[in-house]
C-alpha cells in the first residue's frame, strides 16, 4: 500500500512549503544520509538505558510498541507518556518554555504540530534506513525531521447489538436524523489531534453547518478519539460521530459488537508523524527507537493493531478495507496549523465544552 492516492495532498509537501516560508534563507542543508542500526548505536543507547516517548496513540497499543522495543533491545526501558495530541503539544510547549527537556521521541496525530516544532528548530534531523528505502517521498520531511509513523481514519461507527446494519448511518448527514438524538458519542478537537484534523477537513468539505446541527443532537462529548469506540463497545451509545478506526478494529476483533462506517461524504484521513527532539535527553536511544518504529517488525505491529502503514513492504490487514478503496478527505496540515486555534474556539462555541 505504498501509494496513498494522488488526490491526497500530503503533510510533507504542505509542511515543507511552510518551512520554506519561514526559513527564507536560500541555504538549505541537503537531506541527511539515512542511518542504519549499528552495534555502536545499540551500545550507546544501552548506556542511556531509557527512552521517553510522548505519543497520542491509544495507550494499550503504545505500550505494546514499548514492550516490543524492550524485548528487542533489552536494557532500554521505554516510558510512554500518552495523552491527546493537543495536550502533547501543550505539554511539550510548556516544558520547553520552562527549559525542561524531558521528551526524546514524539508522535502526534495532529501533523500540524510538526510544522511548528520544525519552525521553532526543536527537531533533530534523523532518517532511519527504512524511511529512506521504503517510504514514499510525500510521507517524509525533506529535511529528515519527521516521517509518517502511522495513519488512521476518523470513521463513523455503530454498536451492532443496538443498531441493525440496514439502520446504521451511511453518511455524516444521516447522523442529523432526529432518531439519533441522545445516542451519539463524539470526541473533542481540543484534546485529540485526530479530531482536530478531522474537524478541519470536515468543516472545509461539508461546512460548520453540519456541526451546528450535530450539536443539537444531545451528543455525549468525550475527549480522546479512542474513547468513542470504547463507549460503543460498552453499549453506552449506539453511534459514534467520529473516532479512531484502529481502536474500532481492535475492539471488533476481540469480540466487541462494533462496526465502522465510511461516510459517503468522505472519511477524514489522519497521518501521525514521529520525530526526534534536538535536545532529547537520551539521543542515542531516541535514534534507535525511531529506527525501530519504522521497521517492518514495528509497522506490522501497528497493522495488527488496526493502523495503516506507509511502509512499502507492509500490507493492509486482511478484512480491513484497503486505504485505496476509501474515499478519504484531503489532508492539509498547513491549513490546520494556520486555523487550529479558530477551529477550537468555534467548536467550543458550538458544543459549549
Amino acid at each position, binding site marked *: 500500500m505504498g501509494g496513498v492516492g494522488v488526490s491526497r495532498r500530503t503533510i510533507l509537501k504542505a509542511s515543507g512549503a511552510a518551512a520554506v516560508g519561514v526559513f527564507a534563507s536560500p541555504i538549505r542543508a541537503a537531506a541527511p544520509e539515512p542511518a542504519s542500526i549499528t552495534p555502536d548505536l545499540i551500545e550507546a543507547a544501552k548506556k542511556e538505558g531509557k527512552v*521517553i516517548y*510522548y505519543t497520542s496513540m*491509544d*495507550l*494499550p497499543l503504545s*505500550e*505494546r510498541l*514499548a*514492550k516490543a522495543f524492550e524485548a528487542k533491545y533489552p536494557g532500554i*526501558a*521505554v*516510558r*510512554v*507518556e*500518552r*495523552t*491527546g495530541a*493537543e*495536550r502533547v*503539544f*501543550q*505539554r511539550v*510547549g*510548556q*516544558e520547553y*518554555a*520552562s*527549559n*525542561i527537556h*524531558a*521528551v526524546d521521541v514524539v508522535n502526534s496525530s495532529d501533523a500540524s504540530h510538526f510544522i511548528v516544532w520544525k519552525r521553532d528548530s526543536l527537531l533533530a534531523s534523523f532518517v532511519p534506513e527504512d524511511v529512506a528505502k521504503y517510504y514514499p517521498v510525500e510521507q517524509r520531511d525533506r529535511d529528515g525531521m519527521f516521517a509518517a509513523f502511522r495513519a488512521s481514519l476518523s470513521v463513523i461507527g455503530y454498536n451492532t447489538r*443496538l443498531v441493525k446494519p440496514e439502520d446504521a448511518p451511511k453518511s455524516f448527514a444521516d447522523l442529523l436524523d432526529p432518531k439519533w438524538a441522545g*445516542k451519539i458519542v463524539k470526541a473533542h478537537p*481540543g*484534546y485529540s489531534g485526530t479530531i482536530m484534523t478531522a474537524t478541519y477537513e470536515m468543516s472545509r468539505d461539508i461546512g460548520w453547518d453540519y456541526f451546528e446541527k450535530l450539536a443539537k443532537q*444531545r*451528543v*455525549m*462529548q*468525550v*475527549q*480522546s478519539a*479512542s*474513547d468513542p469506540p*470504547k*463507549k460503543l*463497545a*460498552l*453499549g*453506552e*451509545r449506539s453511534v459514534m460521530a467520529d473516532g479512531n478506526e484502529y481502536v474500532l478494529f481492535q475492539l471488533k476483533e476481540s469480540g*466487541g459488537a462494533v462496526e465502522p462506517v465510511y461516510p459517503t461524504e468522505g472519511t477524514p484521513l489522519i497521518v501521525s508523524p514521529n520525530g526526534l527532539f534536538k535536545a532529547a535527553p537520551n539521543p542515542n536511544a531516541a535514534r534507535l527507537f525511531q529506527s525501530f518504529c519504522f521497521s517492518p517488525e514495528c509497522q506490522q505491529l501497528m497493522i495488527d493493531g488496526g493502523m495503516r502503514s506507509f511502509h512499502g513492504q507492509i500490507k493492509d490487514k486482511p478484512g480491513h478495507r484497503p486505504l485505496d478503496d476509501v474515499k478519504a478527505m484531503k489532508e492539509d496540515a498547513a491549513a490546520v496549523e494556520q486555523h487550529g*486555534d479558530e477551529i*477550537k474556539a468555534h467548536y*467550543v*462555541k458550538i*458544543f*459549549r*465544552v
Partner: protein
Amino acid sequence: MNLTLAVSASPARSTFRIDWSRPILVVVAAALCLLVVLPLGWLVYYSLHDRAGGFTLANFAQLATDPTFLDPLVTTAILAISSAAICCAVAAPMGWLVARTDMPLRKTVRALVMASFVTPPFLGAVAWELLAAPNSGLLNKIFRAATGAEPDDYLFNIYTLPGLIFVIACYTFPYVFVLVANALDRIPGDLEDASSILGGSAWTTAVRVTIPLAMPAVLAGALIAFLQAMTLFGSPAILALPAGFHTMTTKIWSLFQYPPKLELAAAASLPLLAVTVALLRAESFLLGRRGYSVVGGRQGDPRRVRLGPWRWVAFAATFVVLLNPVFLPYGALLNAVFSHVPSEFVSFDNLTLHNIKFVFFELSATGLAFKNTLILCTSTATIGTVMAVVIAYMTSRKAIAWHRALGFLATAPVAVPGIVLGVGLFLTYTRPPFVLYGTLWILLIAFVTIVLPFAYQQLQSAFRVVNPDIEEASRILGATRLGTLIHITAPLLRTSVIATWCFIFVGVIRELSAAIMLFTSETKVISVLIFDLNESGDLGAIAVIGIIMLVVTFAVVVLVNRIPGYGGERLRNA
C-alpha cells in the same frame, strides 16, 4: 511561671544561651508567606494584566459579560447550593442517630462514613459512571432486566447536573456528618434531661433544645460542603464535560489547554477565592457563637434516645444512604477489575486478569506515578506535621509575640481552593527566579500548603490538653524551648502527631485539583494518571489502580485506629 520569666530574663543567661524560637519564627513566617502570599500575588497580578504586560480590567470584564463564563458560574452556584442542602438533609439526621440514639451498629456506620470521607471523589465519579451511565450503567441494566423496559430506557443518567450533584454530595456529606456528630457528642445531655424533667415531650426537647444546640454545627457543615462542591475539579471534569457543560473549576482548567489563556484563568480563579474567604468568615462567626454549646465540656455519655422498633428502620435508612458512597461504587470498581468489558457483570465467560496484568506489567507510567505519589505523601506528611507542631507550639504556648499572626498564616491556606492554588503556583514557579515547574518541589509546596491548616488545627487542639507545667519544669531546669519541645512536649503528643501524619498521607493520595495544573511527565502522580486514563476511556485500568489506592488508604486509616491511646474517639474529630 514567674520563675521561668525570671530565669529567661536574666541577662547573664540570655547572652550565653541562644533561644532558637525567634529565628524559627522568622523562617516559618517567611515560609508561610512564600507558600500563600507569593502565588496569590501573582494570581492577582496576572488577572490585572494583558498578555503584553499592560494594566487592564478586560479579563474581569470578559468574565462578567461572556456567557461562556457566566453559564459555568451559574452552574457552579446551583451545584454548590444543592450539594450542601443534600449533605445537610442526609448527614445531620445520620449524625444525630449515631451520636444520640441507640441505633444498632453505630460504630460501623461511623467507620463507613470515614470510608466515604477518604475515598477520592474522582474515583467515586468514575465508579458512578460504571453504575449509572444511562445505557451501559450496571444499575440501569438491572432496571431494564427487572422491568423489561426498552433498551433506550434508563432509571439514572449520571451525565447530568443532578447526577453530578448527587456524586459530589456522596463524598461531601462526611464533612457535615463529622461536624454534627462531634457537636452532639460534646453537648451535655443535662440540658435535654432538664427539658424532659420539666415536662417537655421528646418532640419539644428535640425542637427547642437539641436542634438549636446542633444548628451551628449543621450550618458550619453546610458551608464546608458548599465550598467543597464549589472547588472540586475531578468529578465535574469526569461527569459534566460529557454532558456538555462546564463548572468554574473545569472552565479554569480548560483555559490552561492550548492555546493557554493564563490571564483569564487567573481572573476566573479570584471569584472562587473571594467566595471561600467570605464563607469562612461567616463560618468562624457561626462557630464563634457556638461557645455556649460546649460549656462544661463532655459530662459523661449523653442520654441516648430509645428508638424502640424504629432502631432497625433507622439503621436500614442509614445503610441505604451508605450504599451510594461506599458499597455500590466499590462493587462497581471491583467488578470492572475482573470484567472483560467494564460495564458487564463478571461471569465465568468474561472473567479476566487482563486489567491487572496491564497495569502492573504493561503500563509504563505505573511505577513512576506510584513512586512520585509515595515520595510526595511521605514528604508532605513529614514536613506538614513538623511545621504544624512548631506553629501549634508557638501559638498555644504564646511562645513569641505575633503568635496570633502565625496562627492566622497557618490557617489562611484553607481559604485557597486547590485549583486556585494550582494556578497561582503555576504562575509563580514557571518563571524566574524560582523555576520549580517540572520538579516534585512544586507539588510538595502545593500539598504542604493545602494540608497545613488541617494539621495545625489537629495539633493545636492536641497541645491544649498537655499541661504546660511539665514544659515549664523543663525550662526551669535549664532546657531551651526547642529542647523542651523535642524532649518533653513531642513525646507527650506522639499519638496526635502520628495520626496527623497519617491523615496528611491519605489526603495527599486523593489530591487532584492542584496536581492537575502542576504535573509534568516526570512528576505525574496517581490521581493524575487516573484522570488521564479516564480521558482515553481505559476504565479497567482505572479500576485496578483505584482499588490499590483504596487498599493503601484504608490500611493507613486502620493503622491510625490501632495507635494505643488514640483510636476511634479521636478519629471522629478528624
